[in-house]
């Protein structure tokens, strides 16, 4: 398939920064990469494993390195930057020491950025802002998945509790659910908690 790339003017080319993204989570990395490309940053590279990351950095000579805050190899990276001076000290991060809110937002989102010394804040900020938004979007996505998973789990437990009531008390499904609900209301607890208690009790008492 041939992609027709928009022609960049030489001015735009000069403005475009090379970005290296280090993230061992391949899904998140691709979400961030897509965002960067949509924002017009054509020169993005992704590294997902740390094997020879130093070599990759040296070869690619990025202007900005974006890394997941939880990556245990941050200390490795910083040492490499300090040694190679590829990225000049004060290396890390977050563009501007004097903007605590920006720094906090980045750390909150789980992203750290290392920036070549001398790059102007106005050029880096949109990149970092984009990364922050995408990191947040990813963790929201993950939280939603987890919520969905636990909701499914919860529904199964309620089904089992209903089944126990139907089997042992001869209730219809509706009656079983009504009992769970009224018990929950009387005890000011969630239906799921009542159902869980019933399931546990029934397991303890045997078949």
């Amino acid at each position, binding site marked *: 398939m041939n992609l027709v790339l928009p022609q960049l003017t030489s001015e735009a080319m000069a403005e475009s920064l090379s970005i290296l993204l280090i993230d061992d989570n391949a899904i998140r990395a691709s979400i961030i990469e897509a965002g960067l490309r949509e924002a017009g940053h054509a020169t993005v590279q992704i590294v997902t494993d740390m094997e020879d990351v130093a070599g990759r950095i040296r070869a690619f000579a990025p202007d900005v390195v974006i890394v997941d*805050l*939880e*990556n*245990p*190899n*941050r*200390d*490795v990276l*910083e*040492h*490499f930057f*300090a040694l190679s001076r590829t990225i000049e*000290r*004060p*290396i*890390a*991060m*977050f563009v501007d*020491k004097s903007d*605590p809110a920006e*720094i*906090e937002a980045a*750390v909150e989102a789980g992203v*750290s950025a290392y920036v070549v010394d001398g790059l102007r804040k106005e050029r880096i900020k949109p990149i970092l802002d984009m990364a922050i938004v995408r990191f947040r979007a990813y963790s929201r996505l993950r939280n939603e998945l987890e919520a969905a998973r636990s909701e499914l789990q919860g529904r199964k437990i309620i089904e089992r509790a209903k089944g126990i009531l139907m089997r042992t008390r001869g209730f219809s499904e509706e009656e079983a659910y009504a009992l769970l609900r009224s018990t929950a209301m009387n005890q000011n607890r969630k239906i799921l908690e009542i159902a869980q208690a019933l399931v546990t009790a029934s397991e303890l008492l045997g078949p």
Partner: protein
Amino acid sequence: MGLTQIVAGYVPLLDSAVLLAAEEFGFAESEGLHLHLVRETSWANIRDRVAIGHLDVAHMLGPMPISANLGLTPLDAAVIAPMALGLGGAAITMSMAVWAAMAEAGAPEDGSPGPVGAALREVVLRRHRAGEPRLRLAVVHPESAHNYALRYWLAASGIDPDRQVDIVIVPPPLQADALAAKRTDGFCVGEPYGSMAVARGVGRIVTTKGQIWQMSPDKVLGTRLQWAQRYPEQLAALLRAATRAARWCEDPTNHSALAGMLARDDRLGVEGDLLLRAITGRLEFEAGKEHAMSEFFVPYSRAANFPWVSHALWFYSQMVRWGQVAHKPEHAARAAASYRPDLYRAALSGINMPVPGASSKIEGALAEPTEMGAIGGRLTLGPDMFFDAAQFDPDRLDDYIAAQQS
């Protein structure tokens, strides 16, 4: 009344024990504190999260507050160490192949740093003559007690740490893997990661940080100066809780409970047996060969929790020695002010736990354990000798730095 919450970061290492025990065994609670512990994956995270206030306090590399105050770190936040978290606790481990070559060159089995270093020098020279690549030795951070202990030992053994070997960074939990994969030839790291490499049969402990410099400092409790100033009572309560926890950690009757707690997946997530070895000083230098060391890791006695200004200045002298910072009087002053024995002393006054009256001492002067007068009782300090018998007098910092640069 509810408990006051303090958020504390740590990296999964043995010397985070004092903080973890303070939370787990009720010491924080009895001071009215709830310690909310957060495990971090890198020292960079510890540094950044303390600096921006995500963490109130943290288990921190001893030199880290100093480097923060010298502007070596990306964020401008004054960081202080009002307490130390223990002495010793780290070992130098080599791959089995390097150890075999060292043994052939006459390295003794007992870890004596002098002859072991001489054997390593022989190996380094032989490799150079044979045109083989330089040894790659790992530490966990450039500004760590381990980097400085390793470099001190290499240099005193006649090996130039900047030219004759490569020193690289590897996160603590990944050290054994890196050694197994031959990405490194050895490392100097806090326990239990040396013992882990030994247990996996990929490494041999050749000497320990406590043999290179007895009772040498390692991790501290670090916090933002701003936080300490804003919440002095909370900080004092935490220092008392952590000191009581440290005393508890050192008591042999608690060692197995401590190892069991640290082993949990939500703590260090490391096999309890490995931790127990380091806690009790029954290290295996090689698999199956136990090597009893008294006082391998000292969490409490020997004034192990006291943040000596002389420790801070020694770390600073090594930062200068290895080119991390230029030596200037104002830098030395900032380094010295990073450790706050005054805060520690004030917090512990009147609770029957002895605290040194002096804030600095000559390092390397005590060949034997020596009893000293202290505020609130008596204390036994030392031995604190460097293996090459050098002394560090913080009042003669310039001379020490000059001598090391020649």
